[in-house]
């Protein structure tokens, strides 16, 4: 009984991480370091919530959530692939843009300082099942993409050794743009989950650092589909565990310590030697524009 709830809670917490991590995976595997996951989450959750409040139509809302995220992906790919600017700086700039621009839009539309109108219960997606199914589909899709498909191979090649890909007459930049945009769409599902599923509308800075935690899970999962999924679930489980431990009351250690545990553990696990150096797992050409 207790374990069931614990696992359910862990899954709920993991969901946005999973979408964001896989979104980031596509981009990173193609050689574009992506720290703009926060911006994806923020824009998609804002667009989904704003359109839902306006139209009360689930289809439109999900579509605009996806478009919102992909829009960020387009800007991101313009800067990283077309203009070939520094990927980290472009990602950070988008994150800052998201935290600044959305409150401005909210002020203009709703007169609030960064939130959309609250959504009634019928406008929300109270059940987590559709999102769990979506997460499984994303997982299976990514797995097949990288293991079986030609496009997956090209993405990996673009991330590891772009000259090899070019020698085959394939446009590296185009592969990267496609990977970024598909990734943006996947991450956007996480944003939609935040504002329609976990929340009731957009609230200021609602991603609360999940984009970065997802990135940590991606790195922790060695950019591989199965380990990344497990890493996301692991982070979620630990978060839900600390929530339960807080209420148990039997704990004599301060809750601050419990709250710090998942992050502490991440650091420790990231430092654990795995036989191969960490950088050998990373896409070799990551953060290197294909000039």
């Amino acid at each position, binding site marked *: 009984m207790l374990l069931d709830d614990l696992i*359910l*809670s862990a899954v709920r917490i993991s969901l946005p991480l999973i979408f964001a991590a896989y979104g980031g995976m596509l981009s990173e595997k193609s050689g574009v370091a992506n720290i703009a996951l926060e911006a994806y989450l923020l824009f998609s959750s804002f667009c989904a919530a704003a359109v839902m409040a306006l139209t009360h139509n689930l289809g439109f809302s999900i579509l605009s959530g996806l478009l919102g995220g992909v829009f960020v992906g387009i800007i991101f790919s313009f800067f990283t692939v077309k203009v070939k600017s520094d990927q980290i700086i472009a990602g950070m700039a988008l994150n800052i843009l998201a935290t600044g621009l959305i409150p401005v839009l909210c002020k203009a539309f709703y007169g*609030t*300082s960064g*939130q959309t109108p609250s959504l009634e219960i019928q406008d929300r997606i109270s059940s987590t099942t559709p999102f769990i199914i979506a997460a499984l589909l994303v997982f299976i899709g990514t797995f097949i993409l990288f293991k079986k498909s030609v496009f997956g191979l090209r993405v990996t090649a673009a991330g590891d050794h772009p000259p090899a890909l070019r020698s085959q007459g394939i446009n590296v930049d185009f592969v990267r743009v496609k990977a970024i945009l598909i990734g943006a769409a996947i991450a956007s599902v996480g944003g939609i989950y935040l504002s329609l599923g976990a929340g009731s509308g957009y609230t*200021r800075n609602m991603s609360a650092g999940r984009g970065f935690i997802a990135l940590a899970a991606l790195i922790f999962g060695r950019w591989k589909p199965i380990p990344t999924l497990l890493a996301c679930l692991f982070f979620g489980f630990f978060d839900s565990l600390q929530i339960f431990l807080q*209420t148990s009351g039997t704990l004599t250690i301060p*809750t*601050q310590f419990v709250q710090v545990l998942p992050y502490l553990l991440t650091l420790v696990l990231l430092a654990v030697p795995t036989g191969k150096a960490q950088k050998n797992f990373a896409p070799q050409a990551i953060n290197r524009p294909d000039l």
Partner: protein
Amino acid sequence: MKFFSVIALFLISLNLKAEPLKIGLVLDKGGKDDKSFNAAAFKGATEAAQKLGVEVKTVESPDDTSYERSLKNLSERGYKLLIAVGFAQTDAVKKIAPQFPKTHFAIVDGVVDLPNVTSLMFNEHEGSFLVGYIAGLKSKTNVIGFVGGMEVDLIKRFELGYKEGIALSNPKAKVLVNYAGVTSEAWMNPTKGKELALSQISQNADIIFTAAGATNTGVFDAIEEKNKFAIGVDSNQNWVKPGKILTSMLKRVDLAVFETIKAEKAGDFKAGKKSFGLADKGVDYALDKYNQSLISADLKSKIEKVKKDIASKKIIVSDYYETRKLCPNSPFKCEKYQKAMQALTPTKK
């Protein structure tokens, strides 16, 4: 020429007369739309602007470093009274107020001992005791939840009062306590609030008191979906989910802000500490058309009795601000405090 100068003088004097009193309201991280603490302050200031004809400038704070900047900026621009909302601004007021001795400051939820600062404090423990008492009577599962925002002494004051209220009306009840975080992000993280509430509900909680600013929204979403009850805080939040919010622990920040502006306008601003409690309705529980079906006449009379007992000190509600000093090792179970308070109040026999 003379004619023009007369007109000019007239216009200047008119302009001087029309210049309204300028009041600055600096909100903390929850923002004016938190439907709770900051919303109450904003409501009080808006009311003052309408009724008293003062000019109110509201500033929201995107991060913890902006309090000082906002206060300084407004002082420099000639604002006569600055109201800093939230304990997080205590240090900023301490630093800025001495630099502008002619500007008046008011700090809500914090104490700053300076000649141009008034500190507006609320007896949150008394109000929390009251809603805890109600929760204890209304709970069917005897498991009752508390969701706090940032884990700080102010919210522990709520928690302690709440627990004592529950202990009075339902000694068997188990109280589950969660905090949303340890940074000021905890005031605006509704998804976290929802997760905490769902976790407590899965452990059988059927009533959850939430004192977490904008994070409250998530708790309300959870109880709505799972068909449980919540207790709101600071503002009257009964309307947010009609029929699902048992009551709200009112903390009349709006009243305190309004009164402070009114005093400033009348020219009798007073520095020093000002406490608002149950006796002067500075804290209270909310009863309106949204929850009247949940509070029976019998329950209401019981609540009124407890209110009287607290006001007359027959019931002594532990104040975390005091117990943390008296019993640093066990501030939630502090016999010393009860004894000390009993010794202070004359017993009626």
